[in-house]
């Protein structure tokens, strides 16, 4: 069997998801037994005209990004959005809450008008091209990435988990963060992370976006029940660009 060719690309983001690929460490060698990594700026100097699987990290913020992404889509058989920025905009979407000019001035000061800072509205990868799979998280879970890759190589279609973080949190036997008087986004946030944050004593930040059908009405009622405000919840949700 010919090894599938994998290419990894990055757009607006912190490259933390790519770092998670590097963090596979020994597993990287096993990965390379199974796939050929043909293009990866962070890990290799090679370039390739075409590939089977494209892993795309980051949000799409500039017109040239849109064109580049469309070219990647055309060259890839399977396109996987990697991480919160690629999947739903991630922290980049915070900028959407401000006037674009104001945001640029805050960040770049006097240089805000430079042509190379041609930022436009922030888009997730699937707002620009079709996406075959999403690996959620900020950053991604390297084990989830490796199982998605194995599944793709075997010819399966990786399924994005559609259950809330509570499921894995209960399986882990954790005490509910609400019992601790905290706001936790777990009940409406897509699981698959193994409830990592609650298991380590933090509330869920919602980095994996919401489940397909979050019950917003119920979430509001819960806040009321625990003496919290909707604004507190919205601020939490905004962090990772949840929609």
């Amino acid at each position, binding site marked *: 069997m010919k090894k599938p060719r994998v290419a990894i690309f990055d757009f607006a983001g912190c490259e933390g998801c790519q770092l998670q690929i590097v963090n596979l460490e020994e597993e990287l060698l096993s990965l390379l037994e199974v796939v050929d990594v043909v293009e990866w700026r962070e890990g290799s100097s090679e370039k390739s005209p075409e590939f089977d699987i494209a892993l795309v990290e980051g949000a799409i913020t500039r017109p040239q990004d849109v064109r580049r992404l469309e070219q990647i889509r055309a060259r890839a058989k399977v396109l996987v959005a990697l991480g919160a920025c690629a999947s739903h905009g991630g922290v980049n979407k915070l900028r959407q809450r401000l006037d674009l000019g104001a945001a640029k001035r805050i960040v770049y000061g006097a240089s805000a008008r430079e042509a190379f800072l041609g930022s436009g509205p922030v888009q997730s990868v699937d707002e620009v091209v079709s996406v075959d799979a999403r690996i959620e998280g900020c950053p991604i879970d390297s084990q989830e990435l490796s199982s998605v890759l194995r599944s793709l190589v075997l010819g399966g279609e990786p399924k994005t988990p*559609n259950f809330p973080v*509570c499921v894995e949190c209960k399986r882990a036997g*954790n005490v509910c963060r609400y019992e601790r008087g905290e706001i936790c986004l777990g*009940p409406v946030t897509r699981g698959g992370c193994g409830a990592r944050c609650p298991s380590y004593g933090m509330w869920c930040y919602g980095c994996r976006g919401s489940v397909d059908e979050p019950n917003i009405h*119920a979430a509001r009622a819960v806040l009321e029940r*625990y003496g919290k405000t909707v604004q507190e919840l919205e601020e939490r949700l905004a962090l990772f660009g949840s929609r």
Partner: protein
Amino acid sequence: MRVIKVEETQIASWTRTLLAQQRVVAVQERDERFVFDDLHQAEDLRLDHDVTLQPPLRHFLPEREELVSFDRPDRYAPVEPDDRPFVLLGVHPYDVAAICQMDAVFAAGVPDPHYNRRRALATVVACDVETPSGNVFAGAMGTAVVEDGYDVLLTRIGRQYLVESRTAKGDGLLALFGDDVEDALPSDLRRREAVWRRNRQGLRQHALACPPQALPRLLALSYNDELWQERSEYCLSCGACNLVCPTCYCFDVQDVVGWDLKSGRRLRLCDSCMLEDFAKVAGGHQFRLRRDRYRHRFYRKGLYTPERFGFVACVGCGRCIDSCIAGVASPVDVYNTLLERHPEALEEPREGAGARSLGQALASLLGRESAEEAASAAREPVLTLRPRCEAEEPRLALAKAATDALEVEQLVAKDPYVPGQAKILAKRALTNHETLYRLCLDAERKLGHKSGQFVQISLMGIGEAPISVSSGPDDGPSFEIVVRRVGNVTEALERLHPGDTVGVRGPYGTAFPLADLRGKDILVVAGGIGIVPVRSAIQEVLWHRGDYGRLTIAYGMRAPQDRLFGEEIEAWQKEPGVTVLETVDHLEGLWHGQVGPVTTLLPSCGIDPPTTAALVCGPPVMYRYVLADLIAAGMEAGDIYVSLERKMKCGIGKCGHCQINGVYVCQEGPVFTYAQVKNLPEALQ
């Protein structure tokens, strides 16, 4: 049975002795709450806990466990079990009751070897409640105190404990206290009675306004109550209530494969019927919306399980109330509100009262008149909260087997979760979406299926999917399946070729009772890929042509290019007494036949109700219309057979995914008579 009296300090030294001898899973404090976990030092044991976060069930049905180990593509083996005996220490009476219930569930039908093996290895040391939890209502459910189901029972009286042994295993544990222990005096036993009285009264943080035995009747009256919609609007569908419940046992199955892309494990994980995808099938059809999922949990506890096993599957531990941040999980709250709206539930049931139709529909499907009869079948005088632990036989067999290597081998050879192998003999594309495979089990073993049954097809590392057998039962050592590419397994199957191997479990489920239909006219009504399962019956009827009257096939499909078995249909039509009528929903391409839904064919079928049996299979939306027309044509509901598709996963009535109300489609279905399912609201939505 022996009851001794020991000092508190002796419990600690006894625990140390236990620890030196075997694995001890005991109640300990963690994060200011309590958990059952491996005990490392006797000092960590707590017997004054209020309630544990997770029920002790997790030590028999872990949140995650390996079911099958495999080497792709064609080697499957049972996993090496952990055969260490262990003591489960500190189990409250309500959890003992729940364990007894789960014993009944996992011993029923095809016993689950994984649960039963662990159960056989366990010695259960119960302890009476010293500190009631904030939401416990075991007193209201009759489970505040238990009289059996444990091996040892500890009861604190003052600064001493009474230790009762109930079984031979318990006697062994009692002996570890040494020879110079005192037997309990009658006065000690009276003090224990006082503890029990206190707990029966005290473990009632919530008061249930009816005896638990009235719950099945209450729920039978309340199916369409507005409460389900009202409360479900506050339900997050997060699954917390199920995942902490000592009587929730539904599970999901997933494959993981290593970097060699060959070796892997099939896992099962605790699942929750509250989750959005729980009852969603590969084609995407959602059989239960949020309201229906919310209602389903209460019905499983208070109606479906009583009808099937004779016990109410809620023991009043209060964990669901503790864990529901939305505050809508409380069974007491729901039942009491329903009681206010349906006070007639407390009256003696009248003869022929229509309100019980849902319960009766389920009971009759299970071959019983009522929950009371289910209880008596379980050799209990009345509906009970706690079956006696009569799941002993399979458990004892397993316990014995666990100590006998040869028998273990035989036992695991029968592990119902391990697939057999089948080779693909032939593969033929029927349309752009559907492919026919002819499969042969290894060693040319005959599948031995009946028309209408299904198998579970496994591609290790990808997963498992329920697929109807599409060929008749007399078809030699091989059989045929037709697969529409709608999910992971079916897509991956498409990439296999003749000579490749797949895993097969089954056959499962009920069949069209063709032997009983001899002499009748057979009317087949099929919509879309509904023709696939009924083709087995058509073939069987054709092979025994003289035994049946007219065979009429009404086949509706979306468009001409979706037509399956085209050449066969031409051949069927040439058989004497066979009529095939076809229609398409949309006229695309070349088509000379009828246009319209499959019901437009029925007037031309010449139905003669008294002599006709109808076999109906199609997409969910089709049934309502076809069944209404058949009844309008004068047919009896008992003469109409339907084949219903749900998300069958385990195939042996355990995982819960395929339920229609309280019916397991993999057990009581997929073939039902219309009479059986017409009062099951989830059957033909």
